[in-house]
């Protein structure tokens, strides 16, 4: 690995650090931001934020940081499944590709799918939830029954059917498909927040001032429901990344040779004994980033809720059942009576 790559790595990490510092400076002007960055409280959340910033910076700077092209088969005979070394910090895989380079380029795909999928899901979910909560009545009934339908259809089958429509599913379609099947929970949450916010007096005051429905929803109702939306967005990014990884692992997500963390694991799973690093690297990357998302979400939830502000992050957000692609929706052991010890 050339000196230029190490230099670029250092620069990217420094940029991530500076980025977090800038976020911190901006956040310290608000109450919730002060709560989030209070020394002592929310330590996992702040580490998570730093980790996410580092991952994002490395993904953006991948062409500079990566010592090799992600698809380059360097020496199919001499460099197959080599353990980590100075030239290949994370070793090489079955096809003699540099795992570190693939990990960096894979971060671009995985993080982009996670972030974009989440943006789509949160946008649609917020719009639907706000409409249902604000107009109530028939609008609410129709939209929420739609959400019930969406929640009752197993997402994995929808995605499998979609995957069958293309030889290689374009990345845009994958993002859209993930985003458009992930907003149901958000819309319920936003609806509940909007239902509560629309009854508050300042909304009536805004109406008395001549504000129209769009202005009331966008300027008065939604900003007051922003906290839970941020939290779902942070948590949702992790969920969507896991989904992408799962799909790519199954071979219906991001198509080879474009690396994503999910299909890197899929590629390397057969040589896991010979080259465990080629599975471990993307696996750890997924685990770390998803955990960081959960930690940030948890810290945000505490920081945005004044009643919980003092208690700090004593527990990580529980992982919802939807994180596990194979798990049944209902856990039969959950209701089993606990034997007395």
């Amino acid at each position, binding site marked *: 690995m050339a000196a230029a790559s190490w230099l670029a790595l250092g620069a990217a990490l420094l940029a991530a650090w500076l980025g977090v510092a800038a976020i911190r400076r901006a956040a310290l002007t608000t109450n919730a931001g002060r709560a989030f960055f209070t020394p002592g409280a929310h330590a996992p959340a702040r580490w998570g934020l730093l980790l996410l910033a580092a991952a994002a910076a490395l993904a953006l700077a991948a062409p500079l940081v990566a010592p090799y092209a992600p698809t380059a088969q360097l020496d199919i005979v001499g460099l197959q499944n080599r353990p980590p070394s100075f030239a290949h910090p994370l070793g090489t895989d079955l096809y003699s590709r540099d795992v570190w380079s693939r990990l960096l380029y894979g971060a671009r795909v995985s993080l982009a799918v996670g972030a974009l999928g989440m943006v789509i899901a949160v946008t649609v979910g917020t719009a639907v939830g706000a409409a249902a909560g604000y107009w109530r009545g028939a609008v609410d009934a129709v939209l929420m029954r739609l959400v019930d339908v969406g929640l009752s259809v197993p997402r994995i089958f929808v995605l499998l059917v979609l995957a069958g429509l293309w030889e290689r599913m374009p990345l845009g379609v994958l993002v859209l498909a993930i985003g458009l099947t992930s907003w149901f929970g958000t819309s319920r949450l936003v609806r509940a927040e909007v239902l509560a916010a629309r009854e*508050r*007096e*300042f909304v*009536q*005051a*805004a*109406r*008395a*001032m*001549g*504000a*129209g429905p769009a*202005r009331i929803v966008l*300027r*008065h109702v939604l*900003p*007051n429901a*922003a906290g839970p939306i941020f939290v779902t967005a942070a948590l949702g990014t992790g969920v969507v990344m896991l989904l992408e990884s799962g799909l790519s692992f199954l071979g219906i997500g991001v198509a080879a040779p474009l690396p994503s963390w999910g299909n890197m694991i899929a590629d390397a799973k057969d040589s896991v004994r010979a080259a465990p690093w080629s599975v471990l690297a993307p696996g750890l990357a997924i685990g770390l980033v998803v955990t960081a998302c959960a930690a940030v979400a948890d810290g945000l939830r505490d920081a945005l809720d004044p009643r919980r502000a003092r208690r700090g992050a004593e527990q990580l957000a529980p992982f919802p059942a939807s994180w596990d692609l194979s798990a049944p929706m209902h856990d039969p052991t959950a209701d089993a009576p606990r034997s007395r010890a």
Partner: protein
Amino acid sequence: MTEPLLRVRDLRTYFVSERGSGTARAADGVSFDVFPGETLGIVGESGCGKSVTSLSILRLVPEPPGHILPGSLIEFEGRNLLTLAPRELRAIRGNRIAMVFQEPLTSLNPVLTVGDQIAEAAVVHQRLSRRAARARAVEMLAQVGIADPGTRVDQYPHELSGGMRQRVMIAMALVCHPQLLIADEPTTALDVTIQAQILELLDRLQTELGMAVMLITHDLGIVAGQADRVAVMYAGQVVECATTKDLFAQPGHPYTEGLLASVPRLDRPRERLHAIPGQVPAATAWPAGCRFHPRCPHAWDRCRAEEPPLLDVALGHTARCWLVAEPARRAGTAP
């Protein structure tokens, strides 16, 4: 005589409960006028329909469960507000008629600066630019007597004291120079000293801007000090309407008498404070006949059977009481 600015006739706002516990007739035939530039006080106990009446004027009553019955008329500057399209109605709200709410903290949006909120009506109705809106907000803050308006304009509601918040609410309401200001218990949530300041401010701004004020309150002291005319409400109706002077000098309705007698006074020998017996009946079941008869010391058969109309006591003084027609029936006078 000048034309009234606002003419309310036979306003009926009913609330239908979903559980079938009956229809609450919160405003049930309210009629009154507001003339340009005057202050009309609207007084009554909790639950008499004051707030519903004021919300009905701007059609802010939540529908459902509330609805305004078709026969009602709310005429403002010659137009019936009850038949306006939503867009036309919005052009009046905050622009020609503005409202100040009771609770200054909950009526301000916690996530917007006070400057943004003050300027909002001007942005909505006059399409001001950001810069002009901010300048306007600073100007309004100065006008409602807030020191250092250039700094305050960028602060959030929680950074202000209760009195300042109410000043901000007033600034919000007045930014478009409305013809009519509806103030729903504007000082109830404030300390007495702050109350006096806010009322003084309202008084001053009313003179400066030449607007009419509808002052809704349960405090007769405020009415005596502020209002030109008073409408007393009971059980969803106006039961007496007169100039403030006439009303305090010779109340025409036993309910008004009761209200006046229940105000503690320093200039009389100390005695037990008078209380009107009983309480306001539920809006789902107003009594038949005169709605006040179960609590009235003078009630006789006619009061239980027939509902009195607003009868003329004197010029510009009406009361909804059979005693006006049959003064000899007053208890304590010889028949």
